């Protein structure tokens, strides 16, 4: 019987996961699985509650993407009530979305994935921490920290609080933006744009060339992609239509409230997390380039859009496509795409702050309960986020379904880890550097695996099934 290597937990991703790699008798990788836990019982908890509670409740289920849940919930409420926010309400929401994206993308590139690139995958494990990165690149770190602070501060100014946002409400936004606040924010946005420009230049000059061989070989799979675009095909992270692209570049566009016509969810007995797939393209198969296989998150969005309607990010997109084509498939290009999105969001924030609508005092419209179904969809830093609600005539919830960004990438993450493990582990030989490189593959997707409990001791609610080479369950581990 083959050996099983367990890497647990996966470090520096948002949440916890356990990778199980199964070796065959010769010591080569037979199969790899990423086992995760999932928030359970949320839909049932919501039943019977007023739908307008959802934008306040959902930021509490995830401390990592609170703004994304907040905005998707508000949009779903708009749809349930059958209203459109006034321009200022919609633009304030989009502005907050761009700022939250910047905060997350900066965090991910410089600090979550940063250790891989700034310190190298073989660095001593004991220095792979926040202070380690500060020590390795102190000037860069100081600049990055300042802009992250500013993004948090900007959200605080616009929404009244930096965490557990409540400013987006059904029908719009609760707090108009004063002109003096706008002027204050505008200066900060200029500085954030400078950091975004610096970041992609720094990465292209000092980081990516050094790791191009790794980019071309690690975790590589072929898949389709999903993301949001405007009617004209431009990238948008707050609103638009969904585009589901196949690996050959052909695609279907559809309104996001028709997602169930295009996406189905498969269940595997070894994972709590569902496996969405493009059902019009074929059934589910956990295989490279399977017709139903698609990916979400930065690379997906950069692939599905026809263009970016801000000049600096568009120039970067053109260069990216000259180098890697469309759709680009190399998994570690998620990092590059993340920096293009960082630039887009910085430009978009300035564009929105310069828009005269942004300081209008008409930020919301009145809503009235009714029996209806409403779908809200935004792009979250980690992928397409869908909130789907149904209410009775009093506006009480009768059905709730959420598909979160990381769920879209469940199958691709498993396939990329398998590919990475197969290329790096031979004849049973591996060391810490190799295992961390396998983890690098997962981190490229920037997954957020757990919205469960947060106990001080960090204990995990994890169940692990170990299978032999014939697929028979030989052991179950749980804590």
């Amino acid at each position, binding site marked *: 019987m083959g050996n099983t290597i367990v890497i647990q*937990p*996966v*470090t*520096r*991703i*948002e*949440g*916890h996961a356990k990778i199980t790699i199964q070796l065959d008798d010769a010591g080569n990788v037979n199969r790899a699985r990423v086992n995760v836990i999932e*928030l*359970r*019982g*949320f839909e*049932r*908890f919501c039943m019977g509650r007023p739908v307008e509670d959802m934008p306040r409740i959902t930021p*509490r*289920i*995830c*401390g*990592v993407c*609170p703004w994304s849940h907040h905005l998707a919930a508000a949009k779903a409420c708009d749809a349930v009530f059958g209203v459109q926010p006034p321009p200022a309400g919609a633009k304030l929401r989009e502005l907050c979305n761009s700022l939250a994206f910047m905060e997350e993308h900066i965090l991910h590139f410089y*600090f*979550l994935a940063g*250790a891989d690139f700034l310190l190298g995958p073989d660095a001593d*494990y*004991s220095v*792979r*921490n*926040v*202070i380690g990165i*500060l020590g390795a690149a102190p000037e860069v*770190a*100081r600049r990055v*920290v*300042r802009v*992250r*602070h500013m993004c*948090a*501060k900007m959200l*605080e100014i616009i929404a009244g609080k*930096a*965490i*557990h946002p409540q400013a987006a409400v059904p029908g719009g936004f609760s707090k108009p933006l004063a002109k003096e606040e706008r002027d*204050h924010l505008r*200066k*900060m946005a200029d*500085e954030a744009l400078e950091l975004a420009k610096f970041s992609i230049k720094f990465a292209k000059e000092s980081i990516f060339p050094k790791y191009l061989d790794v980019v071309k070989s690690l975790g590589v799979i072929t898949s389709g992609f999903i993301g949001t675009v405007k009617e004209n095909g431009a990238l948008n992270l707050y609103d638009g239509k969904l585009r589901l692209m196949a690996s050959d570049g052909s695609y279907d566009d559809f309104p996001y409230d028709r997602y169930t016509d295009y996406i189905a969810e498969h269940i595997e007995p070894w994972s709590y997390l569902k496996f969405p797939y493009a059902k019009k393209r074929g059934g589910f198969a956990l295989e490279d380039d399977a017709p139903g296989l698609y990916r979400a998150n930065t690379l997906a969005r950069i692939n599905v859009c026809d263009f970016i309607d801000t000049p600096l990010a568009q120039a970067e997109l053109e260069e990216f496509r000259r180098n890697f084509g469309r759709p680009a498939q190399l998994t570690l290009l998620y990092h590059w795409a993340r920096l293009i999105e960082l630039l887009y969001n910085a430009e978009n924030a300035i564009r929105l702050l310069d828009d005269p609508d942004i300081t209008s005092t008409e930020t919301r419209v009145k809503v009235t309960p009714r029996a209806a179904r409403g779908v809200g969809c935004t792009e979250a830093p980690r992928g397409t986020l869908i909130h789907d609600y149904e209410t009775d005539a009093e506006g009480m919830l009768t059905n709730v379904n959420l598909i979160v960004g990381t769920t879209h990438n469940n199958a691709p993450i498993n396939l990329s880890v398998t590919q990475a493990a197969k290329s790096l582990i031979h004849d049973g030989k591996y060391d810490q550097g190799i295992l961390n490189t396998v983890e690098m593959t997962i981190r490229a997707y920037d997954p*957020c*695996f*757990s*919205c*469960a*409990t*947060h*106990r*001080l*001791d*960090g*204990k*995990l*609610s994890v169940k692990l099934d170990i299978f032999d080479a014939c697929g028979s369950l030989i052991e179950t581990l749980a804590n």
Partner: protein
Amino acid sequence: MAYMEEDAIPDFCSKPALILGCGNVFFGDDGFGCAVAEYLETRFQVPGSVCLLDAGTSVRKLLFTLCLSPVRPRRLLIMDAADFAREPGEWFEIDPAEIPAVKLDDFSMHQMPTSNLLRELQRETGVEVRVLACQTAPLPTEIRPGLSAAVERAVPEAAAWVAREYFQTVQEASHA
């Protein structure tokens, strides 16, 4: 640097003391820290020198920013649920170094491996880091808000301790 440095620093970094109530209110006693934060906010006069936040599940964002910030509070108090095999509702102070080293050197800030960040803060920056923990009853595996009776009883006691240690004024507001 271009422009008003202090305007870019969030309050939770710039005030002398930072008190964070941590946990997920959807999972039973895991919401202990948030409940204490709410109790302090509504029953006590929080001094201007203290930043008190119900950090919920967003604690990692705050600590991470704090860890990297050029300006930090002198004192940091974390209030959170824990399992140290004591009686449910028993609350106690622990040294960050005592937190089980489940994930010692990682960056995952989604759950309490925030313990790494606490250690880094304490060791590398000189911030006084204290942790107020409360022993939980078994946590639900699915979403079920609400504290157990034992932990509920601990909330006002723990809040009073925090007020004594961190607030200059410890009188409960009479209107509460």
